[in-house]
């Protein structure tokens, strides 16, 4: 962590900052925030274009590492926004994963008892 004083728009601004691979962490005027480092943002965008990875909005992913406890909907079912689809457990609390849109549940990629990683695909909904 470094204390860095910068001149911005003619004024001296002092804060603390640190870098963690591609993330810049800053503490300024009583607030902490993080941004993706500008110099890495461009290279990441290029890499993403090359791999042609697109995250569709109907993909529901695990918001944290944990264990699948219960599936509350089935393949082929029409689901409504806000409907409970899946229950998972992390840090001894239960979290319900809900549908983010109205649609048809066309894929369930996990089973109860599965350990899942952060960002892992769980369910795919085709929006209607």
């Amino acid at each position, binding site marked *: 962590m470094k204390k860095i004083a910068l*001149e911005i728009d003619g004024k001296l601004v002092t804060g603390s900052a640190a870098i963690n691979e591609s993330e810049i962490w800053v503490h300024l005027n009583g607030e902490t*925030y993080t941004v993706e480092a500008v110099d890495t943002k461009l290279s990441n965008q290029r890499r993403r274009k090359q791999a042609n990875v697109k995250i569709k909005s109907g993909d529901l992913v695990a918001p*944290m590492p944990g264990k699948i406890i219960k599936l509350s909907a089935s393949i082929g079912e029409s689901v409504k926004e806000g409907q409970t689809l899946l229950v998972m457990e992390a840090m001894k609390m239960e979290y319900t994963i809900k549908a983010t849109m109205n649609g048809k549940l066309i894929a369930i990629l996990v089973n109860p008892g599965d350990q899942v990683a952060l960002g892992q695909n769980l369910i795919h909904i085709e929006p209607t």
Partner: protein
Amino acid sequence: MGKENQLNRGNDFLRTKGSSRNSSIEKLAIANRGEVAVRIILACNELGIKTVLLHSEADVATRAWRMADEKVCIGPAQTNESYLKIDSNVQGALSMGAQAIHPGFGFLSENADFAQACLDAGLIFVGPKPATIRALGDKISAKKLIENAKVPTVPGYMGGDQSLGNLIAEAEKIGFPVIVKAAAGGGGRGMKVIRSKSEAEELISSAQREAKSAFGSSVVFLEKYLDHAKHIEFQIFGDFTGKCISLFERECTIQRRHQKIIEEALSPSLTDELRIKMSRAAVSLAEAAGYNGAGTVEFLLQDEEFYFLEMNTRLQVEHPVTELVLGVDLVKAQILTAAKEFVLWNQESLVPRGHSIECRMYAEDPYNGGLPSTGKLVGLEWPEGPGRRFEVGFESGDEVTPYYDPMIAKIIVWDEDRPRAIRKMLRVLDETIVFGVRTNIPYLKAILSHSEFVHGSMTTQFIQTHFPDALSPRSLTDLQKTYAEKATPILRGIKRVGTELGADSENYLNSDLLSLQKTWSQSWSGSWRNV
């Protein structure tokens, strides 16, 4: 010489046997982790007791691990394979020649089988007797004890018929809203509020599953849900003779899903009359149970009536606020009591002064519903000063893992009165720096600034009413973006050509310091010698 020339010092700690020498316990094992393990190590260091940390594989390279005199790895990261394994903890303590074991809070601290296993192995257990833990630790049997002692309780169902059908029927009898809780543990786990019959089945089975996962038992009980109450708990302490006193109360009304976030001592809501009544109730329960060591009796207070909630037979997370208003060290008192070397403070000498507030710092994203945040800490700064206390489990460079409770530190302040304490806490939260994981600091600041909190009129509905969702995300200001951009090359160590004050002064400071250091080592290396 008359009394007017004497000061009432309340130096009862001097009555401790052997206050002039170290404790008879030479080595103590800590069956816990994080900031409480650090807390226990600090108390042991000051008592001249060697420490052994019983830790999991995920807690190597943490602050407690570095501070402990010795350490034993007792299992992998998953708590049920390490911190919750009675045998591994007992064997770990014995293998390093410890005479005593401190269970901290959570994990096995309220597990009577664990306390018994320690005693059977010849270890001193820092806590009450196994029989006491058993009688008070199970919420159902504790409630029965309280009823016999004629302390008011919340209407509920604590029977053995755990079938869903029966539990739903009993909930209807009590009258919604009803809360379902785990019998074998607390801390908000296995706890759900049922507002109508239609959601009873889903919530009861969910609570049973959580309870089984957290405490190994799916047994639950039901209680009428008091919907505008305050959570008031009394710290009690018993010495090894079984005499108990009250160290007054803490208010812990600010809770999210029954997990405490902010606690304070004393409560802004109690009259002295209520305080005395509730103190007496807490102490008589503790004495009836033959309690020794630190314990906490929790009540709900609604419309000037108080109801027993549960008794926790261990040190509590929020113990520092009591320590600061009374000037006591509860952990040292616990250890000395276990060693039979501490006789109680004189109740009259415990006069609370000022006001103390604690904030639990969680590694979570307040702009995303409190989603846990993990990662490597790349910067930590605690704004030390008078009346500021930090209980911290990690240091910069350590990794916050997803295996445990996301509470990574506690921030505590003391000041002359409650308004000052609130202002001080806001200032401290402004100045605290955590880089690498997101924290709930913005959330804490919003709560502390809310008029209902400032007035002290909050109830257990506070979070649900005023902060039901995540904080609204704010986009970065231009100043914030510009600052981060311009700081990046400095952080990467790339020298900048230009007239930016920051870049220049950074390099200026660095090169100047380097040349000064060279001068120091040159002049000192010649003249340094052992004395």
